[in-house]
């Protein structure tokens, strides 16, 4: 970390609001060093050897200073894989138990048990095969385009998930639980959509303005939460949830006004976005995948840079690790909250742009689907690291895209995807449970005797209690 560079950057933005900062420069620097070590060992409450060993196993790299969330999610790649397998098994059991044929076969279970087992296997496996065919590779397709179409579908669905997931992850790293991605997507999409169908601008500039408007919309909606939290101390979980509902109603209201409603329509639907305002297709017109995916990749790179290579990101992580220590070290915690929520909102706004100008090309109140809520699980699964979120976004995109295909072909409700997704996050969050289920040795087995659960996960000093 280039600690020397911290100094000149901040007075410019902070306007020299902290005279104590220069006076206590040396003290602050000491604090900062302490903070960094604290971030690695959680204030000394965690045995240092256990944690870096496991994070290294995850391939997070030395750049990530083991943030709050990540430590909670600490496990190794094997645990992550087993969590996915376990969740799929449980989901399969659920599909099998509720299947009609299994039910009818189980009525004579004791005379011919193999019938029940065969029916259960058929029910679960056909659902999962449909899921795979709908999300990765359709081996029944007759042309190459048809075969890889599902994969591009997955990436299309993953695009808003990645963007919004990055927003949630970034807020997590600053110690904020941003449940409000849904509202931020909606407001971002509203801003972007309005620019898209009201202004008529040349190619290039128009799309750029649409993207910008979406980010501004999301940033305003998210930043407002940060502002309220910083100024009044209100809990961001409540605020973001309420802002989701307010956003939904607000968008419904906008869609009933002449400025937004499609001329001649009485339904809450906007006009089509201009051709200049939509993302061009990435792989030609036969696929729905659009340039929004590239924007999502760029956003991931940006968030990685912001968190791991910039002063602002360092301050945000400091606020997230321990707001009191950060304040002592001269970080403006209020500014950190507002900034984190604004950037998170802007990222969610990008997801809104991906929806309104990439996939839907029209603004409705359902433009955000449930991406804002899925984004939370995406960020949790990605352990709030940018590339982890990216990978989790693609996995959940595959689930969602495949789930639609599965519901269409086998009639299995797409809700099973929600079950599997949440189970994955639960299991990954509790590595000791997965290890116990599969009888894996705990890391640092010598310590495990003292109490298996407490060695690998840590208390969270600066989460909700301090926030309220």
């Amino acid at each position, binding site marked *: 970390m280039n600690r020397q560079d911290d100094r000149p950057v901040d007075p410019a933005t902070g306007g020299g609001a902290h005279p104590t900062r220069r006076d206590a420069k040396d003290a602050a620097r000491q604090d900062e060093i302490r903070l960094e070590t604290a971030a690695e060992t959680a204030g000394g409450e965690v045995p240092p050897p256990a944690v870096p060993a496991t994070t290294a196993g995850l391939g997070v790299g030395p750049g990530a200073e083991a943030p709050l969330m990540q430590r909670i999610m600490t496990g190794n790649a094997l645990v992550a894989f087993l969590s996915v397998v376990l969740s799929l098994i449980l989901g399969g059991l*659920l599909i099998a138990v509720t299947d009609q044929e299994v039910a009818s076969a189980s009525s004579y279970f004791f005379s011919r048990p193999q019938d029940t087992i065969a029916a259960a296997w058929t029910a679960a496996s056909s659902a999962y095969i449909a899921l795979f065919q709908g999300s990765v590779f359709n081996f029944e397709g007759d042309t190459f385009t048809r075969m890889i179409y599902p994969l591009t579908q997955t990436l299309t669905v993953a695009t808003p998930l990645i963007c919004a997931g990055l927003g949630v992850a970034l807020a997590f790293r600053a110690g904020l639980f941003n449940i409000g991605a849904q509202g931020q997507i909606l407001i971002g999409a509203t801003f972007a959509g309005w620019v898209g169908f009201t202004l008529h601008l040349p190619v290039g500039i128009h799309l750029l303005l649409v993207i910008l408007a979406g980010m501004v919309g999301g940033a305003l909606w998210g930043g407002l939460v940060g502002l309220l939290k910083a100024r*009044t101390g*209100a809990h961001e979980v409540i605020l973001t*949830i309420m802002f989701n509902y307010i956003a939904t109603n607000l968008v419904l209201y906008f869609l*009933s006004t002449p400025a937004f409603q499609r001329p001649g329509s009485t339904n809450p639907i906007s006009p089509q976005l201009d051709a200049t305002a939509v993302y061009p297709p990435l792989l030609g017109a036969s696929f729905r995948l659009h340039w929004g995916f590239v924007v999502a990749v760029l956003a991931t790179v940006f968030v990685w840079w912001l968190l791991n290579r910039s002063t602002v990101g360092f301050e945000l992580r400091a606020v997230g690790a321990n707001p009191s220590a950060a304040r002592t070290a001269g970080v403006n915690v209020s500014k950190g909250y507002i900034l984190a929520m604004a950037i998170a909102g802007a990222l969610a706004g990008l997801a809104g742009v991906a929806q309104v100008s990439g996939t839907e090309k029209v603004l409705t109140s359902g433009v955000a689907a449930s991406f804002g809520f899925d984004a939370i*699980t995406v960020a949790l699964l990605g352990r709030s690291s940018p590339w982890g979120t990216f990978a989790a976004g693609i996995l959940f995109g595959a689930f969602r895209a495949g789930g639609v295909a599965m519901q269409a072909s086998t009639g299995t409700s797409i809700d099973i995807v929600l079950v599997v997704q949440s189970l994955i*996050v639960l299991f990954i969050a509790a590595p000791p449970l997965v290890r116990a289920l599969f009888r894996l040795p705990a890391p640092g087995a010598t310590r495990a005797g003292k109490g298996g659960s407490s060695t690998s996960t840590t208390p969270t*000093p600066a989460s909700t209690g301090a926030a309220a």
Partner: protein
Amino acid sequence: MSTATTSAPARSASDATVRSWKNPIILSVVALFALFVFAVGAPGNDVTFRLSEENDPIVLPSIVVSAPVIGWVAALAMIVLAVLAILRTRSGRKIPVWVLAVFAVLFLIAFLTWVVGSARTPNVALYGLLAGSVTLAVPLIFGSLSGVLCERSGVVNIAIEGQLLFGAFAAAVAASLSGSAFVGLLAAAVAGVLVSLVLAVFSIWYVVNQVIVGVVLNVLVSGLTGFLFSAVLSEDSERWNSPPRLPVIDIPLLADIPVIGPILFQQTIVGYLMYIAVAVVYVALYHSRWGLRTRAVGEHPKAADTLGVNVNRMRFMNVLLAGVVAGIGGSFFTLVAVSGFGRDMTAGQGYIALAALIFGRWNPIGAFFAALLFGFATNLSNVLSLLGTPVPDQFLRMLPYVVTVFAVAGLVGRSRAPGASGIPYIKG
């Protein structure tokens, strides 16, 4: 523990600067808003508030008021209170609580008069408005009591939504299969405990972040009930999803009292349980050994541990108990409100219960009144959209959420969570 010691002075310092001018400014802005909208923009007609039906045993006369008169009187009184608040703050004293309370009541009266007066039919049944508010508040109150039990012992319960939804689901299925609504009530409590069990195991045994477990549990319950709904319930809804409703029990004579009779003495068993639960939780929390230990575990677990309280067992039991309470609250949706389960039918009520808990400052009585306020806001938006007001429908539906934001961020001031809420306890 270093967190606690360093944050205390910092927090009180920022408190002093934030608190001093926030309330007077908010009061002034609201008072001016009232002056321009409720007084200057008052409709010219009279407004009728009905207090009873024509065929009630006791018939009270309707209250008829003139909208401009009420608007002006209330707005001017609010301005006086705002000036009072400014003067108090300038002289460095605290604003008395009664000023805020009277201000809120005046605002409510002025708003009601204005909005009903501007409607197509300036005539509203006040008793129905109030009774409906209590009915809508029942699941919120159960939910926030569940939150009180959890958070007072130091476990953040975001999973209220999941507890309510699973309670609703279990109540519908069990009542349909058994044909008895009371079996459904029991099943709802068990379902709430199941959700609580997962929350407790993951957050207390496996020390997973409590907010994460809560959020994920809500998704899990939503997915699970949604899946079972489409795979089982809607396949044969006659068998699985047609629960009998809980009967309304009238208490003789008392139920005939105008206005408050239907609210207090004309409820289903869930409604009566709600009043009992609030009272029991309040008394137990502040006047029993269990309550003292619960609060100790939630405020300073180390101290409680030193004095021989088993912190994590205490938390575990409290979280399970909270599941019982929230589960019963969930049964309201399928056994009282409508007969039958619907996908995601709790529709975010669990989160509003969470807001009520914070607005009520982690106190059962406070949470009760906060939940009533949200019930009132929701019911008001329902009634008003029927009356045909000039306010767009979408804004009316926003009302409960906007009230929540103002409640959490605005007038109540900074509320303080139990000290150890959200922080797992690891002995040693």
